[in-house]
């Protein structure tokens, strides 16, 4: 057996092995090296896996050699291979970036804890994405959630502790709902394997057990993905967590939950059950629309950059959920593209905020007067990725918004298309409001002017610009991303093989 056959297992095992190694080494630098190396290896493996399933094939890897319905298997098609690649990519890039800023924001003897929790979180996130077993989803979900609580509590302010605690309560309720849902699915079908579930649910889908399972899973996943009415934990968590942790989580945690949503709604229950019989569209679409309109509006009034971006994240999740509720190839393509693009954009935005915090020590918009003079690269990064967030042509954000509006118009949902435009307008307002302060000199008397260049370290700028370059590239040449996303959409609508 060659190594390439074991790639699915390695995706999870490499970070799992790195976590205890970080504990044993305890040295901040060595722990960072181990974490970075394992994250890069995971990235490499994820890329290889995506290339293997790019032709529409499916990898099924049985753990322990126990064949599918009995044992646990990893099921990888182009949907989850894409998400896994994004998660590994963001983890690696942000880890490079983290070294410099964590030295400034975190005491030395906590660094190894940071990297251990980071690796466990990565292990959990990738595990959720590639597993083909419903109960395994819950286990990995809890691995990633528990380490996320730790990561958030590392924040410099004491608010981080209460934010982490509130997230823990909400997250545990969400995970417990998912656990109940899986339990009822098991009670009704006698299996936990996703492919098996998809085959057996149609036989019993009239039963009330399946209905209960479906409801619990929907609510649980909506909490985990921070879909609008259930988003309360997100703003605090993103605001008070260390900024490098926020950059990592913003691109990965909610995206992975959205992926699980796609998997359950489309592959396991089937689009027909979820949307035609359960009227999921009438639940998800109003929530999504209210989400992106209200949260964009709330973002406009924020005084802290991190909080502004956190509310913007909830709005962006709204777009993705709106795209999901279209139940069409275009809609799902838009959802997949936006999962990828928003991960890249929002991570880059939080990274640029991190650079500002590295020099300024805080993220209050007001005090960033004329910041462009001292930190030109950082401010440019903020503006470029901000434009991408708005959806200006030639950026990645444009591609996803274009596909999203296309999908809405296909369905004849004029109101949705219009409200997406309104929400984008609001995004323009909040990004411009912040950018305006940074670029123009509104020199008020008594305000000390920063003199000369005071740019963040190169080790932070390079990974940030790498991500921005990637998102600009996908903006200019969107065919590759769109092709992958479209294939993923087809596979989702087609169900399991």
């Amino acid at each position, binding site marked *: 057996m060659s190594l390439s056959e074991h790639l699915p297992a390695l995706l999870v095992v490499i970070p799992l092995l790195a976590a205890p190694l970080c504990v044993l080494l305890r040295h901040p630098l060595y722990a960072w090296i181990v974490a970075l190396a394992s994250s890069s290896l995971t990235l490499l493996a994820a890329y290889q896996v995506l290339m293997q399933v790019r032709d529409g094939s499916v990898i099924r*890897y049985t753990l*322990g050699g126990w064949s599918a319905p009995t044992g646990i298997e990893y099921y990888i098609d182009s949907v989850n291979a894409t998400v896994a690649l994004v998660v590994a990519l963001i983890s690696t890039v942000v880890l490079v970036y983290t070294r410099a800023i964590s030295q400034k924001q975190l005491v030395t003897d906590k660094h190894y804890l940071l990297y251990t929790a980071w690796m466990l979180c990565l292990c959990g996130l990738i595990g959720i994405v590639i597993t083909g077993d419903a109960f395994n989803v819950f286990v990995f979900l809890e691995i990633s959630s528990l380490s996320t609580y730790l990561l958030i509590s590392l924040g*410099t302010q004491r608010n981080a502790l209460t934010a982490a605690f509130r997230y823990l309560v909400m997250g545990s309720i969400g995970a417990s709902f998912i656990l109940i849902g899986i339990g009822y699915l098991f009670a009704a079908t006698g299996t936990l394997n996703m492919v098996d579930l998809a085959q057996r649910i149609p036989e019993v889908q009239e039963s009330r057990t399946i209905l209960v399972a479906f409801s619990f899973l929907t609510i649980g996943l909506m909490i985990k993905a921070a879909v609008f009415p259930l988003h309360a934990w997100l703003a605090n968590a993103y605001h008070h967590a260390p900024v490098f942790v926020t950059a990592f989580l913003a691109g990965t945690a909610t995206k992975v939950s959205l992926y699980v949503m796609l998997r359950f709604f489309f592959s396991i229950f089937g689009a027909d059950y979820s949307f035609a019989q359960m009227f999921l569209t009438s639940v998800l679409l109003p929530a999504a629309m209210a989400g992106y309109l209200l949260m964009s509006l709330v973002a406009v009034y924020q005084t802290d950059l991190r909080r502004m971006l956190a509310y913007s994240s909830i709005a962006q999740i709204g777009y993705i959920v709106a795209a999901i509720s279209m139940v069409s190839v275009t809609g799902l393509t838009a959802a997949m593209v936006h999962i990828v693009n928003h991960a890249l954009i929002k991570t880059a935005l939080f990274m640029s905020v991190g650079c500002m915090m590295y020099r300024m020590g805080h993220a209050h918009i007001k005090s960033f007067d004329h910041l462009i003079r001292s930190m030109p690269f950082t401010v440019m990064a903020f503006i470029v990725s901000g434009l991408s967030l708005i959806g200006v042509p030639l950026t990645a954000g444009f591609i996803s918004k274009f596909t999203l509006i296309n999908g809405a118009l296909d369905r004849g949902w004029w109101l949705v298309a219009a409200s997406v435009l309104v929400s984008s307008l609001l995004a323009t307002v909040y990004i411009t409001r912040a950018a305006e302060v940074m670029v123009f000199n509104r020199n008020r008397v008594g305000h000390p002017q920063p003199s000369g260049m005071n740019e963040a370290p190169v080790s932070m700028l390079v990974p940030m610009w790498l991500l921005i370059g990637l998102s600009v590239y996908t903006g200019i040449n969107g065919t590759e991303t769109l092709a992958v996303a479209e294939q993923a959409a087809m596979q989702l609508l087609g169900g399991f093989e």
Partner: protein
Amino acid sequence: MRRHQQQRHRVLQIVAKLLIPYILLFALYVQFHGDYGPGGGFQAGVIFAVGFILHGLIFGVLRTRKVVTPGAVRNLMAVGVLLYAGTGVLSMFMGGHYLDYGVLADDPLRGQHWGIFAVELGVGITVAAVMISLFYSFASPRGEVAASNAPAESTANFGKMTPQQSTHKTAANNIQHKSPAPTDDPDFDDRNSKTGEPKIGEPKTDGKPS
């Protein structure tokens, strides 16, 4: 005063000394007999940790921390996970799938046996270490006043006494000789630990920075 206290707990101490070896032995039995009967790493790990937790309750956490240092516990936690994941990787190198124990020996049955043995041992070590470290971090006297928003103090470290910890009377008694107003009345001691915060600059109850 210290001797006085120790005499008061003499019965408990002797009973504990008698019991602890059997608890540990039973844990090992549950661990290694798990192949043939009910048992396994989870249960064995918890029982094994109970031996140390009992020691901590009777003799005070500070003495237990000398028996098993927090550093050792932390390393054992990591070793257990490594053993578990390493067994899986080993089976991968031997030509099977991840955690496919069948390939670990010539005879698949024997391979399964060895695989389960190693994995459960890893689980047992980790569970025991985690339970002990949970006990340490909740029961340990927290000697240093933590600055409110300084990131400087670490999770497993000792800030100040919290109400939860004062329920562990023996633990509180044990550091009593360091508190400003020593008295023999255990109730007073309890009140003291609830309301009075240890003085800044008081010697750290444990020399080891964790």
